[in-house]
């Protein structure tokens, strides 16, 4: 049943192209809405069991010899994500039914990718095997870039899709390498198996490389600095996609992976520092960049980056519980993990609703540029209310859920000072606090620039009015969740958050961290920090018009993009250069590569196996006439090099063939001689027919150097063949190698009923070879007819 739940989106996606035939004119979204909704309901039935602290696992062997098996493991963390994926998925499908025009858009593509993504995401969070996780991981990258490129006739969409693909797949490969290193060390791909061996892993030399590689995967996926640059460009996707993939779920896959791996890697100090610093830098970079964006989705993209950084940092602080130890300390750090989980859900609700509102604004006004928007409060009161909830939550104002997680975030940062470094860690809360001010700033920017001020009707190409109710349902649901979770923060803690924390920190005593959230903490440090954020945030917003002329604000694009674009260009130019050196377009150059390689290989084998034999070893008598034949043959062959006349060239070629036939006769090959004679006749006729109209052989004016190269290569081939022949013949005689030919000699008459052994071998013993050989000949005949009779007309270059 669990397998069915994960694979159901894939199966239904596969049915879509078939179904599409009948549903062309209808909104297929209505039918598909059932899929995530049913899955959500199904996963919700696991809540009681998981809430009791149980976990469910299923095993299905796939490639047992490599340790790959499709194992499913449902625990608090996996279930939290599964509910998030299916829950937000339901709302997003509902929203996109109204957002995408069934007449203009290729809806079956859209839903195909969306369902594929949903299935892959469920696969990531529920599978226990790292290789399976990796496969689903790459599937999400794939479906993400397909969705970004949904409007594939726009250049920016293609650019964004390629960028997200390159960066996330690069991370995916690194992650896979990390998984393999873990497998080498621990001998298992199972996550639970790795957790069980965490202690022995810590001492291994592969621990740090594996950790860095796995983190690369998580950081690229979760848009951590400096890999975040793909996320703003991914905003070219339809807005439901941005709401779903690029804020609520896919970018959190990296968070999921890091949370999953805390029991494995968390005991090392490097893990803590990498997570803390990356998260902190990402958070600041994101919130500072967000404030200079003019595109509403651009602001939300950088805000998502910043929030992801915050989550990463919280996980880092929380994992300190693993290596610090001590009862009281542990519960403080466990609080950080709890905060991360709470904020994960909160972020999905408020960011999802904000994306949907931005989509509505885009849909109704035709623009997302805050310089053109304004005064929408009176035109779209419902959208304004939802946006107000979402933005207030993001800025961390009470009584919304964002306030609670922000306060908890401050608590977590402050608690860092209880580490042995003491007040040396004071800079962390200070920087975090500064980033929060910027967060407040861009939230205010979004709210006031969009909804207040003068409504400039002439700015818009279309009549602006409130969105249809269908579009508003999903953001309203999310918006009310924002408020509900703010007023009753403990609503989901016992059933969802606590099991998730338990699965991240399995070693923790459940009694110790039993955690309750409160809207009101009393007048403590955190509250003062919040008040400070509001005061300085307002100041920042007020000063924005004054400073917006600075160069810092005139640059919307992230400076790191230069690195990416330049790198790609350099790669293209560089590979072109490398290819240009080696791919000359001259046949003889390619042939020369092959010949040189073969000569090298033969030389290597000679020296490796010490099989070089002096030619004198096989010297023997030869009848006089044989010298004559050999001399004539060599003469004719060498003459080919000097002949300028085309017809003479062909005739000398025929003479050589006849000499070969003569040699076959001398050495008892009557069948061969006959065949060679006839083949040579027919070939010469063909050559004459084909080449008689062509001009004379043009004297080749080639540089002396390449002439010498040709000479060296061909002499090397000649000498090589000679030596191979000498040693082959020598060793055949020396070792008394028993040939299988005796079988043919003895059985030709008994089994084949013939006396010509060569012919009996051909038509009886090895008849299948002959059949295939004849088949080649037949293909040649048919191909020649095709080539000459059914050719391209005119001067086409073929």
């Amino acid at each position, binding site marked *: 049943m669990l397998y069915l739940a994960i694979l159901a989106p894939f199966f239904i996606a596969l049915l879509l192209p078939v179904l599409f035939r009948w549903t062309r004119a209808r909104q297929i979204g209505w039918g598909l809405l059932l899929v995530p909704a049913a899955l959500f309901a199904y996963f919700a039935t696991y809540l009681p069991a998981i809430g009791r602290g149980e976990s469910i696992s299923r095993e299905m062997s796939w490639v047992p010899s490599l340790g790959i098996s499709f194992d499913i493991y449902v625990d608090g963390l996996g279930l939290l994500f599964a509910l998030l994926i299916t829950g937000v998925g339901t709302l997003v499908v509902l929203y996109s039914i109204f957002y995408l025009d069934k007449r203009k858009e290729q809806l079956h593509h859209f839903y195909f990718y969306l369902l594929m993504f949903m299935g892959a995401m469920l696969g990531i969070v529920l599978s226990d095997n790292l290789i399976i996780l990796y496969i689903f991981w790459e599937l999400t990258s794939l479906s993400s870039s397909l969705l970004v490129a949904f409007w594939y006739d726009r250049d920016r969409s293609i650019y964004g899709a390629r960028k997200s693909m390159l960066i996330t797949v690069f991370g995916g490969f690194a992650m896979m390498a990390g998984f393999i290193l873990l497998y080498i060390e621990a001998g298992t791909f199972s996550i639970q198996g790795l957790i069980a061996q965490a202690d022995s892993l810590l001492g291994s030399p592969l621990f740090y490389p594996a950790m860095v590689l796995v983190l690369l995967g998580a950081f690229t996926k979760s848009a951590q600095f400096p890999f975040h640059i793909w996320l703003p460009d991914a905003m070219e996707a339809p807005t439901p996609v941005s709401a779903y993939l690029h804020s609520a779920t896919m970018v959190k896959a990296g968070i999921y992976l890091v949370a999953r791996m805390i029991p494995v890697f968390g005991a090392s100090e490097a893990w803590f520092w990498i997570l803390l610093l990356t998260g902190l830098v990402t958070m600041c970079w994101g919130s500072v960049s967000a404030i200079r964006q003019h595109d509403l989705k651009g602001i939300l993209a950088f805000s998502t980056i910043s929030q992801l950084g915050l989550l990463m940092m919280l996980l880092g602080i929380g994992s300190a519980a693993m290596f610090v130890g001590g009862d009281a300390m542990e519960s403080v750090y466990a609080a950080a993990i709890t905060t991360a989980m709470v904020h994960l859900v909160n972020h999905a609700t408020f960011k999802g609703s904000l994306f949907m509102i931005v989509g509505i604004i885009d849909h109704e006004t035709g623009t997302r540029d805050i310089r053109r928007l304004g005064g929408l409060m009176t035109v779209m009161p419902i959208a304004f209310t939802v946006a107000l909830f979402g933005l207030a939550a993001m800025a961390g104002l009470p009584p919304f859920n964002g306030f609670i997680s922000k306060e908890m975030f401050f608590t977590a940062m402050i608690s860092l000072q209880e580490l042995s470094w003491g007040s040396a860690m004071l800079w962390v809360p200070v920087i975090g606090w500064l980033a929060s001010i910027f967060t407040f700033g861009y939230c205010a920017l979004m709210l006031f620039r969009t909804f207040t001020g003068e409504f400039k009707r002439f700015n818009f190409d279309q009549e602006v009015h409130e969105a249809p109710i269908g579009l508003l349902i999903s953001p309203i649901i999310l918006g009310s969740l924002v408020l509900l979770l703010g007023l009753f923060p403990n609503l989901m803690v016992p059933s969802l958050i606590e099991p998730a924390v338990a699965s991240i920190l399995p070693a923790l005593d459940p009694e110790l961290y039993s955690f309750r959230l409160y809207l009101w903490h009393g007048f403590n440090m955190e509250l003062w920090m919040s008040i400070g954020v509001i005061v300085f945030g307002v100041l920042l917003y007020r000063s924005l018009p004054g400073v917006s002329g600075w160069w810092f604000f005139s640059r919307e694009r992230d400076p790191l993009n230069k690195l990416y674009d330049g790198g790609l260009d350099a790669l293209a130019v560089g590979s072109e250069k490398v290819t240009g050196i080696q791919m000359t*377009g001259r046949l003889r150059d390619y042939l020369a590569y092959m010949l040189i390689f073969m000569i090298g290989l033969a030389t290597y084998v000679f020296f490796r196996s010490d099989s070089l034999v002096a030619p004198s070893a096989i010297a023997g008598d030869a009848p006089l006439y044989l010298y004559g034949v050999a001399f004539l043959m060599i003469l004719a062959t060498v003459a080919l090099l000097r002949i300028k006349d085309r017809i003479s060239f062909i005739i000398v070629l025929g003479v*050589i063939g006849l000499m070969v036939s003569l040699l076959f006769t001398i050495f008892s090959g009557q069948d061969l001689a006959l065949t060679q004679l006839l083949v040579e006749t027919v070939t010469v006729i*063909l050559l004459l027919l084909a080449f008689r109209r062509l001009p004379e052989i043009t004297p080749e004016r080639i540089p002396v150097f390449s002439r010498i190269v040709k000479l060296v290569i061909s002499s090397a081939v000649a000498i090589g063949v000679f030596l191979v*022949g000498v040693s082959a013949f020598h060793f055949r005689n020396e070792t008394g190698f028993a040939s299988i030919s005796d079988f043919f000699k003895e059985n030709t008459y008994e089994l084949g009923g013939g006396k010509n052994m060569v012919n009996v071998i051909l038509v009886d013993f090895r008849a299948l070879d002959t059949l295939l050989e004849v088949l080649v000949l037949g293909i040649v005949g048919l191909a020649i007819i095709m080539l000459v009779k059914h050719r391209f007309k005119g001067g086409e270059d073929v």
Partner: protein
Amino acid sequence: MELLMLIVIAVLFGVGTYLLLSRSLLKVVASLMLLSHGVHLLILTMSGLREGAPPLLDESGTGATDPLPQALILTAIVISFGLTAFLIVLAYRTYKAHDTEDLEQLRGEPNE
């Protein structure tokens, strides 16, 4: 005897390789013919050369020369004939289509 044949074979291979690296299509076709002659003679030589012992049971009995290499060579002769015929027609068509048999002029544009 074998040594003498090997020298002939080496010359066939050397000239064949030299022609293979040239610009004229006719020479490339000719080089493949020379190389296949060389290979056929090499197979025959490596299994030992016998005069006057054709692989016919009523002529030579069990003292006949080894029939297996001969069967292989016969197959090889026919296959290389098919290949040569195809190449000749291909060269012919190439000349008809492009009015040249010079491989240097047939070379594509860079990055084509």
